[in-house]
């Protein structure tokens, strides 16, 4: 079922909450890799550049890690 749903997903059906969480996971990975490579805390623009995103959008995505899962998500995951 997950497979089919992934296949069916496009921007007109996928909920922002879910999409942001996926982005946030990538942001975290990028942050950890950069921290390791640079041996210090990365700056927001460094993460944004590595992700090919704007800094403000990185901020927005990161916030989604904090929010409780929506009902939809609970049902599907």
């Amino acid at each position, binding site marked *: 079922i997950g497979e089919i749903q992934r296949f069916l997903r*496009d921007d*007109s059906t996928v909920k*922002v909450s879910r999409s942001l969480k996926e982005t946030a996971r990538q942001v975290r990975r990028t942050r950890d890799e950069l921290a390791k490579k640079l041996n210090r805390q990365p700056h927001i623009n460094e993460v944004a550049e590595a992700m090919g995103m704007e800094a403000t959008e990185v901020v*927005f995505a990161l916030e989604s890690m904090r929010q409780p899962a929506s009902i939809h998500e609970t049902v599907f995951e």
Partner: protein
Amino acid sequence: MQNFMELKFASRSENESFARVSVAAFVSQLDPTLEELTEIKTVVSEAVTNAIIHGYEEQDGQVSISCKIIDGTIELVIEDSGRGIEDVEEARQPLFTSKPELERSGMGFTIMENFMDAIEVMSQPGVGTRVRLVKRLKSPSVASH
């Protein structure tokens, strides 16, 4: 469910992305689809850019955005106290731009019209411009069934 926010900021181009994400963060309490959110962000970006480059012609000024949520409907008002528009009818025509030298596409208002359910433009030369936009989210999305 009813909620509101108001945002004011300096008319600087670096604030466009901040304004866009702020509105996105506010409306995401409705958990829109990616497409809906992208449409809203694009519209905010167009209206704010217009206020900064046309309204204030990149001089110091203040842009305000108000956003109301009433049930599933979003009302956005973007305002500036800039130079205003002489002929709103003409300005709203697709491809019309008063700044072809900036490689503007002249499609800002057309994009707003297309992505939103309603648009109202009020403007007075020398006083400012007020764009009111309404969007009703289609809910529930197909994915949630």
